[in-house]
């Protein structure tokens, strides 16, 4: 029972990070109809920037803020310099370009920082507090929950309640009509990329201390898990991404705790295939996605 509680809390904590990362994927998918396969690499790049800043200044928090800013800028840059110029006629093209970005970013990181693991620092203790003799929750878990909670609520509020959120949704749903109504559709797209990449950077900052550390490939498996989370929730649904993230986090935690951590990658693959084959539109889709 104790173990179950521990695994559940741990799973929800990891799941919160997957949820944020999946949300970032959904943001770009809704805005640009692109699954940003480079998001993991971009997030790692931002985390490396944070590492450099923290190492130079000795301040974790300065690095944390810089990582998010770097994520925002990198997202805008990728949209303006690369994605904007890709012919979207075939859905393969943006995917292939994103993969090119993965190679490029990881290689540049490898050249600058080398391929060894760098320690990723956690700002709070990761040892769990005990409540009534049961190890429940570490301060770091609390930090993760709070941060993700704030970010997700802020995004939800922005999209639902603010003019810029309305513009972004309109630009995503109907770009031509939105332009006729005075919406700067290109600008909204760049903003969407920046936001998504910023959220991705935040997720990387939160997840890296719980993994082996900083490495150019550190987010590869996280990306696959987050993609699975986004697919579980349905690529078009931000609430679905959050729920999907928590589901994937719990599943991985239970598999790792009860069956062995070696099996977690396989569990992700099985879940992804199962969801796609049974409900291709995700668990929250009203109807099955495209069946031609």
């Amino acid at each position, binding site marked *: 029972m104790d173990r179950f509680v521990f695994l559940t809390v741990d799973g929800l904590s990891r799941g919160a990070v997957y949820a944020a990362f999946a949300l970032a994927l959904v943001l770009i998918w809704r805005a640009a109809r692109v699954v940003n396969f480079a998001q993991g690499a971009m997030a790692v790049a931002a985390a490396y920037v944070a590492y450099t800043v923290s190492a130079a200044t000795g301040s974790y928090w300065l690095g944390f803020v810089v990582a998010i800013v770097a994520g925002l800028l990198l997202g805008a840059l990728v949209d303006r310099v690369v994605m904007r110029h890709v012919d979207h006629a075939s*859905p*393969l093209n943006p995917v292939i*370009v994103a993969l090119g970005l993965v190679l490029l970013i990881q290689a540049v990181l490898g050249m600058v920082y080398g391929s060894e693991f760098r320690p990723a620092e956690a700002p709070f203790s990761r040892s769990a507090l005990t409540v009534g003799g049961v190890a429940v929750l570490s301060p770091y878990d609390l930090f993760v929950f709070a941060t993700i909670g704030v970010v997700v609520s802020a995004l939800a509020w922005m999209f639902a309640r603010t003019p810029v959120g309305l513009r972004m949704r309109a630009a995503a749903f109907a770009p031509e009509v939105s332009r006729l109504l005075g919406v700067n559709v290109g600008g909204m797209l760049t903003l969407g990329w920046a936001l998504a990449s910023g959220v991705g950077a935040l997720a990387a900052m939160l997840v890296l201390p719980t993994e082996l550390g900083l490495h150019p490939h550190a987010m590869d498996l996280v990306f696959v898990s987050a993609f699975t989370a986004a697919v579980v929730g349905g690529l078009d649904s931000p609430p679905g991404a959050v729920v999907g993230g928590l589901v994937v986090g719990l599943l991985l935690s239970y598999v790792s705790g009860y069956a062995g951590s070696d099996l977690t990658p396989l569990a*992700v*693959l099985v879940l992804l295939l199962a969801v*796609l084959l049974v409900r*291709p539109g995700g668990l929250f889709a009203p109807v099955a996605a495209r069946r031609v």
Partner: protein
Amino acid sequence: MSATRAALPPTHQLDDPGGRPVDRRRGSTLLRHLAVVLAAGLLLVALSYAVEPFRNFQLATVAAYLCATAGLTVLTGLNGQLSLGHGALMATGAYTVALCQTAFADRGMTGGWLLPLSLGAAILSTVAVGAVVGVAAARLRGPYLAGVTLAVAVVVPALAVTFDGVFNGEQGLSVPVEPPPLSLGPYFPYERWQLWVTGAATLLALLLLANLIRSRYGRTFRAVRDDEVAARLAGIHVARTQVLAFVVSAATAGLGGALLAVLAQSVSPGAFSLTLSLFLLMAVVIGGLGRLTGALWGAVLLVALPDLTHSVTEMLTLSPALAQRLEGNLPLAIFGLTLIVVMIAAPGGVQGLLSRLGRALLARRPTRRS
């Protein structure tokens, strides 16, 4: 005017939907492909005597990669399915060959027929894995398919660690390979023998692929890629076509992986990482999607570019640590950048540029006359 029009290349050949004319043409197509393959084989044999052993080994590696890139270009270029998982399929072939060869060696079996048998087993096991992935893939589109195959690429190499009793974890397995047959003489260079073996296997695979592309199946591949609904209305079984394309592509990827394992005489999960899958995709995109000649360019690039950066880093005097970082990553960076630039500037790839150039030259001649 009429001269200009006559000189324009036939950009779109009319594909007869079955019937006599196609059958008549197919005979000559097969012969033509056979002739090309025989010529290429003779050229390879000549080359294998002309160049030093290391180049022989490199050519053999190109041949092994070519197997995989040719299969991938059929899948992605002709059938429109993106696979990021071909590295994992290559790993399947490589590990099968390693297990088979080890089993033969443990039982003390020898003979020239054992290696082809292992390669056949590698193809079969990859076909089985490819069929499973292909059945799933046929139900998926665009980013979903890319995501699933990406997951395959990330997860499958990790299985070697999960089941390390069989696959021996990160260490991997060794692949015992017999020396060249004695009939070739006692001093026959091993690398030349390697080139002969991989070259023969690859040319055979290419011959089959080339004929498949020109056949009824090749046309259904393209029809499904261009418009699924139209293909369905024309009586094509879309899902079956997609699974077939995936299986064919998996078979060649498995063969390619098996050949690589035979060349390296070892397999380990590190050699079949996600990066390899991305490399393969990059190779076919840069070479030119959907063209076997493009797959050749891509395979050459896969071998030549790391070699080139190696020479460059050796020329510069760098600290050993920095040199090591650059050597491992510079080719990756160049690949990534090239991939992006090619997709934006020249979606036809190298082969597309070459044929556009050729067409421009052909078209110019008669216009100048008139």
